[in-house]
């Protein structure tokens, strides 16, 4: 992993909305071929961090480096050819067809009037079949089910051919089947295609199962950054989530612990063995 180039680096980054400091002095890195999850309670600043990584928010202090160069040195179109952010709610006008939506992902490569070259058409075709959208290509976005919609939006992000994918809650509102197939695609794009993925995930089991590394954030700070086992068994994790969850070693996936809901305290269950155990 050391040899892989660092695609995203944040150095002592601080971010604020007006007077409200959301991120304080955060440093982190994401390398090519890596699937990294950002976890942490609501309001910890995870989405804000992703927005800052693409330049939607200007840092108060510190800097963002993309592909080794400071963010502000990048030409926006050039950067869009290497980087994308998939927000939690990606609005798409209902009348757009699936194909038109995927095609919009090619925008950074298209001519000013949206003219597509043969390579662009090839990528659009391939993305549509990779995401099993062939039969839906002419459907309008407003006609799709939640799973189909999310798949199309993800396909649009992939049509952009980013080397670095930032995704905010890609599994929200999806059933378990679609949650897993979405994460499989993202995981494959990192491990098979050498892209880097930084995903905000609320589901700690999915984060544990798919991540190479988990970054735990609370109150605008990185509390812990490491492999799933290290982070989930850390005292910092225990401090944030306390008795609301139980962490168990999984019998069939070593080093990827399971996260279960904590037991209700009123039914007489003892706390023995259900407290998250601090490892270091």
């Amino acid at each position, binding site marked *: 992993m050391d040899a892989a180039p660092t695609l995203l680096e944040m150095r002592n980054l601080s971010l604020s909305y007006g007077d409200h400091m959301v991120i304080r002095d955060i440093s982190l890195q994401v390398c090519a071929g890596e699937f990294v999850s950002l976890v942490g309670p609501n309001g910890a600043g995870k989405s804000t961090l992703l927005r800052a990584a693409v330049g939607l928010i200007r840092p108060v202090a510190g800097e963002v480096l993309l592909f080794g160069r400071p963010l502000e040195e990048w030409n*926006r179109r050039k950067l*869009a050819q290497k980087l994308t952010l998939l927000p939690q709610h990606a609005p798409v*006008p*209902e*009348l757009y067809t699936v194909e*038109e939506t995927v095609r919009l992902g090619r*925008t950074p490569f298209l001519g000013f009037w949206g003219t597509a070259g043969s390579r662009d058409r090839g990528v659009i075709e391939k993305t549509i079949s990779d995401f099993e959208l062939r039969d*839906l290509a002419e*459907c309008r976005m407003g006609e799709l*089910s939640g799973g189909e919609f999310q798949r199309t939006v993800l396909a649009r992000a992939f049509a952009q051919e980013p080397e670095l994918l930032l995704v905010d809650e890609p599994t929200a509102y999806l059933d378990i089947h679609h949650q897993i197939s979405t994460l499989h695609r993202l995981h494959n794009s990192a491990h098979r295609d050498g892209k880097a993925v930084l995903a905000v995930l609320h589901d700690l089991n999915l984060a544990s199962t798919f991540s190479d590394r988990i970054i735990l954030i609370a109150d605008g700070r990185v509390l812990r950054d490491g492999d799933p086992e290290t982070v989930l068994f850390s005292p910092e994790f225990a401090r944030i989530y306390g008795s609301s969850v139980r962490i168990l070693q999984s019998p069939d996936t070593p080093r990827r612990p399971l996260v279960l809901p904590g037991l209700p305290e009123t039914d007489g269950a003892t706390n023995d063995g259900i407290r998250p155990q601090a490892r270091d």
Partner: protein
Amino acid sequence: METTVARTHRRRSNRTASGVAVALLTLVLAAVALSWGSVSVPIDAVLRILWSHISGTQPDTSSTWATIILQIRLPRIVLATLTGATLAVAGAVYQAIFRNPLADPYLIGVSSGASLGATLAILFVWKLSWGGMSAISLSAFAFAMGTTFLVYAIARVGTRTSTTMLILAGVAMSALLSAATTFLMLTRQNAFQTVRVLGWIMGSLALASWGDVAAILPYVAVGGVTIAIFAYRLNVLQLGEEQAHVLGVPVEFSRVLLIGAASLVTAAAVSVSGVIGFVGLVVPHVVRMIWGPDHRFLLPMAALLGALLMILADALSRTLIAPSEIPIGVVTACVGVPFFLYLLRRQRKEVF
């Protein structure tokens, strides 16, 4: 896993064919509208007059007819074409930028500004003219542009402009300016002038002249070309600020430019035709529902359909109760609303 195939295979309408068909229909309608009126001129005579005018020969028809066609009806129809196309295109731009199906060209105060300007010019009998524009048009244009700038300045925070702020500032400013217009009309207590103001506000092409056409053409051309060049960018902007940014589009710059261009063409149209409602709101929706939301096709199609609707509305407005005229805004509503509601009901689901 998914129930898919049944809903698919939407028939792709042949867009080029539709475009040509609507363009031809517009031309036919324009020819018919030229022959209609208090003096009825047969279509073949209309065509001969037009041809002799183009070729520079002497027409073999009555010279009175030639004057009626060339000096009264033709500028009126050309102006109807320009304003109809302009309002429809500006409406499409506003709807895309504000990502709001209720947006129309008057959203951020152009109409109320123009109305106040025209009212002042009528009530205080301003005597000024510039570049072929009458005092009323000139004042309406100046006030419309002024209002747009003011609304924009209010909505701007630092280097960014929120579309919600723009809409709210626009609505508030419209309320203020409308109040001023009403106040002025009531205090002057001049029935003749009040009727003129109301007539202007409801929209009319009755006083159209070649001077009006020449006066607004430069603004419409500059704004129209700008919008045409940025047609694809509107597709991207419709995905919202965040996604447009991530797709490499300079959001703020595009927005300022497109809102500026749309406001410019709207102000130009309104200054000579008055506040003609409905066209700018509904024509883009009709095009979107029938041919889809790609602005590279939507904009030219909206221009054609807007022109068509306006020519038709103007022809009806001057013939239905001739020799009186119905305000053209009333006609556009009466012709367009039933058609729009029919489409809306048929569509049922997605409209935007």
